[in-house]
């Protein structure tokens, strides 16, 4: 299985704080991979390092075989590597439908194309995806008026609208009620299987990530602590210690 994302010996420090140290991991194309670790272990920093939010101090990040460390966020996004935010981010004063329309892929747009109206095909696709995430009835409401959970679903829909090849999801189930979590997991699997989008997921909810991911990396104190299949991770004493605070 070829890796779509390869992170090699990545290091990132903020002043004296080492947030990521010597991290090497690979996400195979078409799979769902998890990233876990206690609070402050460097998970979100690693996501930031991957999508170009900040420059890394050392190491390399390759997406689809090409080096992307050093590229800026929008360029990496246009290559098909997209992330969602831990603190959900949507365009609050725009309607859900508008949120979806502006999320359509930006890859081969010329300067003049910014004057065009969104094509009808985009609108149909946006409505289909809103239906997929269960927000069709609310498509004309302002996104800022939705509940937190609904905004999270909208953000997920927007990411799909962008036709990414790979999605980095930062705690997709945080703040969502248990019923909705089940539905969301079902949707994540469908996206992975039917749209062939590779998923790399940060998650604190253990039952979610153990069920969802085929392979899991665990961070602690900015370093890679363990990796393996879910059952191996669950049985790993180092992981248990890290979560219980013995580390």
């Amino acid at each position, binding site marked *: 299985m070829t890796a779509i994302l390869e992170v090699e010996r990545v290091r990132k420090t903020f002043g004296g704080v080492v947030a990521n140290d010597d991290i090497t991991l690979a996400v195979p194309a078409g799979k769902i991979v998890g990233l876990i670790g206690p609070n402050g272990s460097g998970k979100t920093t690693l996501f930031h390092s991957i999508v170009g939010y900040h420059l890394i101090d050392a190491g390399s990040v390759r997406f689809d075989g090409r080096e992307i460390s050093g590229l800026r966020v929008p360029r990496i*996004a246009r290559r098909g590597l997209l992330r969602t935010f831990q603190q959900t981010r949507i365009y609050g004063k725009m309607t859900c439908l508008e949120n979806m329309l502006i999320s359509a892929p930006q890859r081969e747009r010329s300067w003049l194309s910014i004057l065009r109206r969104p094509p009808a095909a985009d609108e149909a696709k946006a409505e289909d995806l809103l239906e997929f995430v269960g927000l069709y*009835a609310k498509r*004309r409401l302002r996104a800022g008026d939705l509940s937190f959970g609904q905004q999270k679903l909208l953000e997920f829909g927007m990411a799909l609208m962008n036709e990414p090849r790979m999605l980095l999801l930062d705690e997709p189930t945080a703040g969502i009620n248990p019923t909705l979590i089940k539905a969301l997991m079902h949707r994540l699997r469908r996206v992975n299987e039917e749209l062939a989008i590779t998923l790399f997921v940060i998650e604190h909810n253990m039952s979610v990530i153990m069920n969802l991911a085929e392979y899991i990396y665990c961070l602690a104190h900015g370093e890679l602590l363990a990796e393996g299949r879910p059952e191996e991770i669950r049985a790993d004493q180092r992981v248990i210690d890290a979560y219980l605070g013995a580390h």
Partner: protein
Amino acid sequence: MRPRTASRWLLGGLLTLALAAPWLVPAYRTQISFLWVMIIFALTWDTLGGQMGYNSFGNVVFFGVGMYACAVVQRDAGLEYFPALFLGMAVAAALAVALAAVLGSGLLGLRGQYFAIATLGLGFAAGEFASGWDFIGAGSGMVTPLYPGEVGGRESFFYYLLLALTVTTFLVLRRLYSGRFGLAINAIRDDEDKAEAMGLHTTRYKTTAWCVSATFLGLTGAAVGNLIGFIDPRDVAFAGPTFGVWMVLMAILGGKGTLWGPVLGAAVFHVTQELFWTYLLGWQRVALGLLILAIVLFFPVGILGWARERWPERFGHTVDERPEPAEGGS
């Protein structure tokens, strides 16, 4: 669709009234001409300030640059009045756009209040610069050429020229806002980091938006210089404390981020201000100050913004009660 028809009727009615006004109330031609200028000010300010969330206090620079550019062409090109005027307007627009592109590449990287402060400095700097440059008359300003037609013809000509500019500005912005461009600058306003994370060409959109504003401000400046007949660097061309602040206030008063809000705000503001001059002479600046306070205190989201929060369903923000199409998502 009914709202669309209503908006057409409204636009048609206003346009008819505007076209007939020079015959109906000839004495008010200049005042109404300045209403058109105010509407353009508010509309073009709102492109960045309302739709894109970048509060610019320096837009008056493009107005002043257009004014001077046109006057210089009229003075030095050696052409008849009208060819010189139209060539001057073209040069005014081109220079304003070029300036917006250059300034934009530097300043639009700043966010929030930093951008506002930087643009504030821009307006002051331009005024100081113009009052020191002999080529454009320095502190004593410039006089635009005499209008060749009969007496009173100048007022009518510039009335219609500014009306045409206002209508063009409105229609062009309406077209732009209804497309990808409008969505993109709204997205930048709501969350620029998110827009970048979604792969939007944010810099390109931001610069284009400022260039669009600058185009119409440059053209307007060119026309206003000729309407007034005299260009003072600080009080007419780069009039930051008056025009520069008013454009912000008018857009906020009407409701920033909406298409009709700035138009409405400009109309209310201009009429109120004219009334102050007529009936409260001597106290007009105090009254204006109180009006500004009232706007900021009671209409922080503007007239249309207030209406939208009061009656969201009238603005199309409704929940679709119909059953969802079959083949469910969850």
